[in-house]
């Protein structure tokens, strides 16, 4: 059987992570292998441009436009591509819809796969050992940590993102928001409601 031995080079670097990355970066800079402007552009993209607002806009549109919703669920990748909302870590997306009978929850037990173009980078809890371990085994207990108590009349479907398919939960529209326009609804859609660990809620007045 073929062997593939990946050596632990990181042991040769300082153990403090700040010092470790500094040492690494300094080598890469001297060798001309990184361009600080490119790094800044990447940071700006994920820190300031891409975030849960992207997903929220899609959800609000799906709530108010049945044709769009059907299209989003059936031809997801095409719809997202037309909106420039695919791309890295969102190349292949499946939208799973919450209903009266079904509540969907997303996890990645093997690492931390997450639909970046739609939700930005994952929150720390999503990457935690506890969430990755528990979400598939006891989703209802996990949800109660988020103060979400599901009635036993709902089935829970947990989606483990083991492939390059990324999952987005389409939450149920709250009754109290019915009648609002698409652009008013966007702020009801929380990030957690698109992972399945929360529900949409009225925007808080600032």
């Amino acid at each position, binding site marked *: 059987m073929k062997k593939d031995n990946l050596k632990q080079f*990181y042991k040769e670097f300082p153990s403090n992570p700040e010092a470790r990355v*500094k040492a690494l970066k300094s080598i890469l800079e001297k*060798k001309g292998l990184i361009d600080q402007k490119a790094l800044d552009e990447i940071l700006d993209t994920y820190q300031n441009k891409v975030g849960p607002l992207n997903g929220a806009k899609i959800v609000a549109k799906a709530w108010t436009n049945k044709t769009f919703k059907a299209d989003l669920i059936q031809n997801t990748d095409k719809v997202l591509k037309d909106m420039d909302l695919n791309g890295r870590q969102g190349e292949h997306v499946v939208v799973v819809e919450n209903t009266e009978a079904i509540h969907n929850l997303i996890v990645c037990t093997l690492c931390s796969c997450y639909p970046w173009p739609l939700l930005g980078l994952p929150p720390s*809890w999503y990457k935690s050992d506890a969430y990755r371990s528990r979400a598939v085994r006891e989703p209802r207990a996990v949800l109660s940590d988020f103060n979400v108590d599901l009635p036993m009349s709902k089935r829970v479907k947990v989606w483990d993102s083991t492939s390059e398919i990324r999952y987005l939960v389409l939450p149920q529209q709250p009754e109290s928001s019915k009648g609002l326009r698409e652009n008013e609804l966007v702020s009801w859609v929380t990030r957690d409601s698109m992972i399945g660990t929360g529900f949409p809620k009225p925007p808080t007045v600032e």
Partner: protein
Amino acid sequence: MSKVHDMGGRFDPKRIDITSSDLKFKADWEKDVFTITLALGFSGLWNLDRSRYARESLQPKDYLQFSYFEKWLAGLINLLGENGIITDERDIGNNAKKSSFRVLEAKNVKKLLLMGGPSKRDSTTEKKFNLGETVSVRTDNSNTRVERGHTRLPNYVKGMTGKVIAYHGSHVLPDANAHFLGESPQALYSVEFKSQELWDKCEHVEDTVIVDLWESYLEKCK
């Protein structure tokens, strides 16, 4: 085979710390790790499956104690190490060959991030399983080609029986791609398992877990 990164279903008494929600980066060094990892992901020297393999191959005790971006950092150093680009922290003068190394330029960032790296490929063979079919997961969840190699078959479904609920076309097989053995695209399915068959205690008899599994992970149900 039991692997450190394969967390699904492990008994972990910890509450989820939901207050850890909203800070994308806890410190500036995390920003460096994140951006350098993404930038070097375009270098052409490795692929996404290789970089996952690099992270999950860290020493188990480090994997468990490192924060998320510490894992990324150590994995990245290992990838650079195996490509002869670095050896240790003093190795600044060593001028490794960079002929095949593509340095990411700022002007290409937006385009490349938007392009991403689709894993779907044209199917060349007929798929083996149908929607609604009951299938069994292989009992050996090791990589079948490489000793202790990368795989995306989680331990908690090995040997378990579920139902095919979606077919996603042919996708690059991580078990091969992570070891530079070619893309070997294969039919990818979503398979739904009853929670009560996976776990000792189940919270609700109708709850299910859906896992994306490649065709070679699955067998016809006996």
